[in-house]
């Protein structure tokens, strides 16, 4: 505890740096994965290719990706941008499959009804398919949040500052409190961002919770159901 009190300023600063690295990666991967997931949902042939690519991408060891990526992007190895690009790639790898599943989960009846009412293809996507994919997209986003916040710490090994620097520094100097602080702070950050995303979901998808308990028969319908002829 003593160590934490004495280094509160440092921890706070690293927390902000950690946020600055993870939040852009989370948002970018979410936004980029949605159109890719939609394509995988619409085109059978694209689905297999895209989902396999994402699986392979996720299998690349993070340290190797951090080091190899500058050759493609031109950013320095220690540049925060390099880390954000790598984290975004991992986020996309996780999110695309969920996004494809999310669009698959939209009922064909609902899609048909939207078309029949006179939605254009684009209008239907924004007004019907995207919001209805929301609950599953949110579930995917939550995984991306937690995995990204945790992955940021690996950057400390190649010298990109974050809460992960508390473990590398703590290991080198043998300060257990510093290591524990790094772990706990990372977890707390992940949990707080996760909670925020859940809260955003409640605000943006109010129908999802009301629909969840299943069909609630109204008082008007009850006697009719009871009176159904045998």
């Amino acid at each position, binding site marked *: 505890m003593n160590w934490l009190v004495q280094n509160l300023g440092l921890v706070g600063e690293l927390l902000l740096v950690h946020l600055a690295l993870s939040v852009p990666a989370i948002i970018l991967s979410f936004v980029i994965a949605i159109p890719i997931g939609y394509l995988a949902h619409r085109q059978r042939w694209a689905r297999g290719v895209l989902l396999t690519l994402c699986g392979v991408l996720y299998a690349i060891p993070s340290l190797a990706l951090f080091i190899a990526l500058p050759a493609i992007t031109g950013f320095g190895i220690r540049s925060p941008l390099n880390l954000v690009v790598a984290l975004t790639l991992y986020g996309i790898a996780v999110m695309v499959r969920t996004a494809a599943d999310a669009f698959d989960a939209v*009922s064909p*009846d*609902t899609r*048909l*009804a*939207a*078309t*029949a*009412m*006179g*939605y*254009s293809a684009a*209008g239907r996507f924004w007004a*019907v398919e995207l*919001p*209805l994919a*929301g609950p599953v997209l949110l579930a995917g986003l939550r995984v991306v949040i937690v995995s990204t916040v945790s992955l940021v710490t690996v950057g400390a090994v190649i010298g990109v500052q974050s809460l992960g620097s508390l473990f590398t520094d703590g290991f080198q100097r043998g300060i257990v409190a510093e290591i524990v602080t790094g772990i706990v702070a990372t977890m707390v950050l992940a949990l707080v961002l996760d909670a925020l995303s859940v809260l955003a979901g409640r605000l943006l*998808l109010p*129908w*999802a919770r*009301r*629909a969840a308990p*299943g*069909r*609630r*028969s*109204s008082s*008007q*319908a009850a006697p*009719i*159901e009871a*009176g*159904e*002829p045998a």
Partner: protein
Amino acid sequence: MIEFRGVTKQYPDGTVAVGGVDLVVPPRTTTVLVGTSGSGKTTLLRMINRMVDPTDGAVLIDGTDVATVDPVRLRRSIGYVMQNSGLLPHRTVLDNVMTVPLLKGTRRQTARARAMELLETVGLDASLAQKYPAQLSGGQQQRVGVARGLAADPNILLMDEPFGAVDPLVRQELQQELRRLQRELGKTVVFVTHDIDEAFLLGDQVVLLRTGGRVVQSGEPAEFLASPADDFVSGFVGADRGRRRLRLEEVGGRRVVVDEDGRPAGVLEP
């Protein structure tokens, strides 16, 4: 008036869903397309609002070939009611009913007033307006579906087995409501069902289709019983079974109509 001229729909694999249909749907009447599954009745219905385009022939609305009309604009001008309501689960009942008018650019306030009015017309309490579809019973959802189909005040209303998934008592209630609505509103209704009783109950004109999308017989309901075109027709309408063969019996001085098995169907008015 809707007119089908030699309309065919053949899929790339060779399956013929609709095979050379010629048909006229008179305005302000109800035409029921009836047939078993695979008879192309839904495909035929969806050709009217271009959800399906024919591979041959043409569909005309008031003399205009629908193929020349932008499908999105066309669909906004035609009401559509489907099985399982097809309501948008993420929108309230009111928002669902307002959907098409808002797509057409109606002002929100006007659309809202009209939607509230329509909920009343289809027999729904105003308190349901802010509920989500999942909070309604199946019958209530279908009523909302009908209100939504009527919201933009279309001349044509397409109904694809709208009462197929609700229980029999609610179905009867909804059928009667539709008859009442149709008397009040006088839309050109094209209604798809596989239930011949429903077809006879609702149709001014009944069109019986069979596999491969061919019209076997069309005309007023009574014609199907009086002069069925062939054995398929008499089989489908049940004329060859006891149910449609009624006879009179004296019971307690009154004349009762019974079917072939002696089950009562009603009394004969003097």
